[in-house]
């Protein structure tokens, strides 16, 4: 029986674009890929764009006068244009290519580590994060704190899996230099209301960094509407390749803040004793950039945009609602994170009686169902909710209601196995 939910995409057509979805596991089990928050699958269009690049235009970018170098440069810089348009950036020069989200966030932390006033951090200044951050938005700030003496503060979480902003005036104060917060939690699924945080941060003159790693793939991301100063995301979660991420930053800030990595491409002129730097974004892109990966990310953006990010968001909302209902019907299963389908992304974490997530994941795998188990690089969330780990199912544009059904059936099997 096929379920029909309002807002679903034509997944029959979409799934044909993803070669891996045809794979059979353990002999004859069709792959049910529910690990999209870890990484997304890659459509043929993206694979082909990269293959075509290697077979036709491969060269190092910039400075070359030969045809291949000009084509490679046009493709690489063209990908920057696509990203800028995708996130509604005021200027293409605000788009910096990094190797992943983590580097993008570390880039901001390191710019600030070496910045002069008015951005200077150190003793007497503080940095604010939240208890639902991914380790990649925790550890860079811990390192900054250790290295500079800046104090690290954070927002706690409510029992419902939402940010507790009740003490916002005490957490974000005149001492706060930067507030870095996740748009959509990769473990809880929570979509945060960033507006009050951005407002308060800007009131006290702090910069706002948004970790949009779980937002860019799933919803319309408009950096101007968001009002933040920096936004980070990563290619491999949005149908793109590994090896590329993006930091968007306000041009005025990128002009004033110091560079991070030094090397080829990021300079204006070099002598042995001193160098001057290229304007943004190149100032922050040392060395040969991820050229093929930018080509792939550009193709991924074309792919997603052709379907429409609003339609993808609606599809995932429908699937997530269906999954929440179905999982709530599984005896002994407890969702960790918002239990309703409001302001919620497509990742659902849960515990399952006292069966350890490793065992849950292993038995699901045997049925071809790929979920993630563990602390999902958000160990403080596990500590907060008193669980050692969770099982997480996460959806994307190709996910179907029958995959949710397969998960529920798989869980019944898990129960029998360990019963």
């Amino acid at each position, binding site marked *: 029986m096929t379920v029909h939910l309002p807002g679903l995409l034509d997944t029959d057509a979409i799934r044909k674009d993803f070669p891996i979805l045809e794979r059979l596991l353990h002999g004859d089990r069709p792959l049910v890929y529910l690990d999209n928050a870890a990484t997304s699958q890659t459509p043929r269009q993206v694979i082909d764009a990269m293959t075509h690049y290697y077979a036709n235009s491969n060269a190092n970018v910039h400075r070359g006068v030969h045809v291949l170098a000009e084509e490679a440069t046009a493709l690489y810089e063209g990908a920057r244009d696509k990203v800028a348009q995708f996130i509604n950036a005021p200027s293409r020069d605000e788009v910096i290519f990094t190797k992943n989200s983590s580097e993008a966030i570390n880039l901001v932390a390191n710019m600030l580590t070496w910045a002069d006033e008015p951005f200077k951090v150190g003793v007497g200044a503080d940095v604010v994060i939240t208890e639902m951050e991914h380790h990649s938005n925790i550890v860079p700030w811990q390192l900054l704190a250790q290295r500079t003496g800046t104090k690290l503060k954070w927002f706690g979480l409510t029992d419902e899996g939402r940010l507790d902003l009740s003490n916002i005036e005490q957490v974000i104060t005149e001492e706060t230099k930067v507030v870095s917060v996740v748009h959509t939690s990769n473990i809880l699924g929570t979509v945060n209301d960033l507006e009050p945080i951005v407002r308060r941060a800007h009131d006290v003159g702090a910069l706002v960094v948004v970790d949009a790693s779980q937002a860019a793939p799933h919803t319309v991301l408009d950096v101007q509407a968001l009002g933040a100063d920096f936004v980070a995301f990563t290619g491999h979660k949005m149908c793109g390749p590994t090896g590329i991420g993006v930091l968007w930053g306000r041009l005025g800030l990128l002009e004033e803040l110091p560079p991070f990595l030094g090397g080829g491409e990021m300079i204006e002129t070099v002598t042995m004793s001193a160098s001057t730097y290229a304007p943004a974004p190149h100032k922050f892109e040392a060395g040969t950039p991820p050229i093929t990966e930018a080509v792939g990310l550009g193709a991924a953006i074309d792919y997603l945009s052709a379907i429409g990010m609003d339609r993808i968001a609606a599809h995932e909302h429908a699937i997530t609602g269906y999954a929440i209902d179905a999982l709530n019907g599984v005896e002994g299963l407890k969702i960790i994170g918002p239990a309703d389908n409001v302001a919620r992304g497509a990742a659902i974490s849960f515990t399952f009686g006292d069966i*350890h997530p490793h065992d849950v994941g292993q038995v699901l795998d045997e049925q071809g169902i790929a979920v993630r188990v563990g602390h999902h690089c958000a160990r403080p969330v596990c500590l907060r909710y008193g669980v050692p780990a969770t099982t997480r199912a996460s959806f994307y544009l190709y996910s179907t209601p029958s995959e949710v059904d397969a998960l529920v059936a798989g869980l019944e099997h898990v129960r029998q196995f360990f019963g």
Partner: protein
Amino acid sequence: MKLDGMYQEIILDHYRHPHNKGLRDPFDTEVHHVNPTCGDEVTLRVKLDGEKVLDVSYEGQGCSISQASTSVMTDLVIGHTIEDALNAGDEFLALMQSKGQGEPDEDVLEDAVAFVGVSKYPARVKCALLGWMAFKDATAQALQTTEGQK
């Protein structure tokens, strides 16, 4: 089902009815080990007596593999010489690194031979080793203390 290779009945038995679980006195040393990738934890106590492992007791949480493996381990070491116990640990480690190719010596490893299937799953090898590593660590610490007292 292929999974049966990993979750052998003997493993599920130890998981459902673990041996020597619950911390006991007296003990020489207590250690706390964590598997950071999955949150499995064990607190383990060792009581030595000259040449022998007098007692091992533990408390912990984790997956069936880590819990069963710890239970099996206690059976294998309690009442044995320290040397035999550590030897068994080495054998078990070799088995776990065998990628399913190991041919375990049942005389040495007894119930622990059931874990040969686990060695095919790299992500689970650490689970199986958690209790053993804690035992090795606790024993080494206890021996050091005894050395120091000599």
